[in-house]
């Protein structure tokens, strides 16, 4: 257990040292938010549409979903670089689990991003973009729940793709595919409400909208959720279980493949 805590602390510290990266990434996130707020203000009529989605709500949506996304750290190379360099053989001999180590690494970085990016960005947006979010305690608790569940889904998908590096030399195309799907289907930019019916139903079968769309909406429009909260929780658990099974399988089979292939 100590190892993982230590690792969280290490990757947190590593993130601090990259100061310029820090400032530019905040700027990037702000730009991103700004662009989308501009778009929504331009295309959504004042009075709102679709059961009360107003430009103000979409502004808050853009900020919230981007913030959540910003706090999920990217750690693509962690496992795949170990596989490529063969370092993984050494890691496998040590008394810790690589997937858990990976989790620790992501948690560490995400903690840093939450504190060093998430919070400043939130403060900045509240003043600059005039966000008003009225939250009841219950809603906030529900939000925290979904946030953590969503983080787990995020981690499991990342683990899955990283494990593909046992099978393919270049995993990069898979990450690209993943990012493209996330951009489109996770609610990072467009809320599920705006999708045509048939597409909406298809997407609900994937884990993607659970990443950003639902946590954001449970905070912003708790009374107009597409799926009620309890059913939502159920869906989260189903997704997590399925993803857990798939990624564990791929990972374990991948490890087994390693000595056979010679590493």
């Amino acid at each position: 257990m100590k190892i993982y805590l230590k690792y969280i602390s290490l990757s947190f510290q590593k993130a601090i040292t990259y100061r310029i990266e820090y400032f530019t990434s905040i700027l990037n996130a702000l730009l991103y938010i700004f662009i989308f707020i501009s778009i929504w203000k331009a295309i959504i009529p004042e009075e709102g549409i679709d059961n009360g989605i107003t430009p103000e709500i979409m502004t808050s949506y853009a900020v919230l979903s981007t913030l959540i996304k910003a706090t999920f750290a990217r750690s693509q190379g962690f496992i795949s670089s170990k596989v490529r360099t063969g370092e993984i053989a050494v890691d496998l001999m040590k008394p810790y689990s690589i997937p858990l180590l990976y989790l620790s690494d992501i948690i560490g970085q995400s903690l840093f991003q939450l504190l060093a990016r998430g919070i400043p960005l939130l403060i900045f947006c509240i003043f600059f973009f005039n966000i008003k979010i009225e939250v009841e305690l219950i809603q906030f608790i529900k939000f925290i729940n979904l946030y953590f569940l969503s983080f787990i889904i995020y981690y499991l998908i990342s683990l899955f793709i990283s494990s593909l590096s046992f099978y393919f030399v270049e995993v990069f195309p898979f990450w690209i595919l993943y990012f493209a799907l996330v951009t489109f289907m996770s609610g990072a930019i467009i809320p599920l409400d705006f999708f045509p019916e048939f597409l909406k139903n298809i997407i609900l079968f994937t884990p993607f909208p659970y990443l950003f769309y639902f946590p954001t909406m449970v905070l912003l429009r708790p009374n107009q959720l597409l799926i009620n909260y309890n059913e939502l929780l159920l869906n989260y658990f189903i997704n997590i279980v399925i993803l857990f099974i798939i990624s564990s399988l791929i990972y374990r089979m991948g490890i087994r493949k390693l000595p056979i292939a010679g590493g």
Partner: protein
Amino acid sequence: MKIFLENPYIRLIISSIQSKMEYRGTFLIFLLTILGFYLSQVAVIALMLYKFKTIKGWNAGELAMLYTLLIFSMGVVSTIFSGMIDFSDFIRKGDYDRVLLRPLSTIGQILSINFDLTGLAHLSLGFVALVITNHLIHINWNFANIFYFIITIIGGSLILGSIRIMVASVCFYAISNESLQHLIVFSSREFLMYPLNIYTRTVQIFLTFIFPIAFINYYPSYYFLNKDPSMIFHPYLIYGTLPMGIFLFFIAIFLWRLGERYYGSTGS
């Protein structure tokens, strides 16, 4: 033809292409990357249009035109100005000193040595975008329009290329410009994927007169789409792409020379 091949810069470009042929795999990956990126962006916009029909008066075909001009310019720039993107590594490894030891222009060498055909991936996507634009909107491709299209791409490429040169010249003063570069490349693309009129007036002024990327696709679109220019600052801005490109280029060269002089007095 012979004279062509005897020009040092042309030969350096050819050599660069030959060298990079070795790494064919990267081309495919690169193509996949930008394909994935643009497809997801297009999906997002398509969704918005499906729901809202237009974005501040710009319909699907017109937005496609914006994309077309942007992607073409990006394609030309990533082919020709690739050397500026890797300039911080270039200087750090001592390759810049080697460039100084040859009786040729420094910028000329840096651009020629790193000439990168993978930028053509952008161009192929640009053609796709052009076809889609034509499918959605009727544009009369007479001689004048084709000519002005080429001019616009040249101007847009000059604008983006000049920005690259200016960002690269920061390397003369600081060790790394990675983050700055990432920020500039990122924003110069993101802002332009939507029509400028969705942004606040301040931002529009900024993107027209201070960081003048709007000239790459927004203003020239008015010309091709025959849009009413009464909403923008001045109707003549429509023709500003090439002049702005040339202007920025001179500024970029000037700043570059300043950087070279600084390097000459302080070393690496």
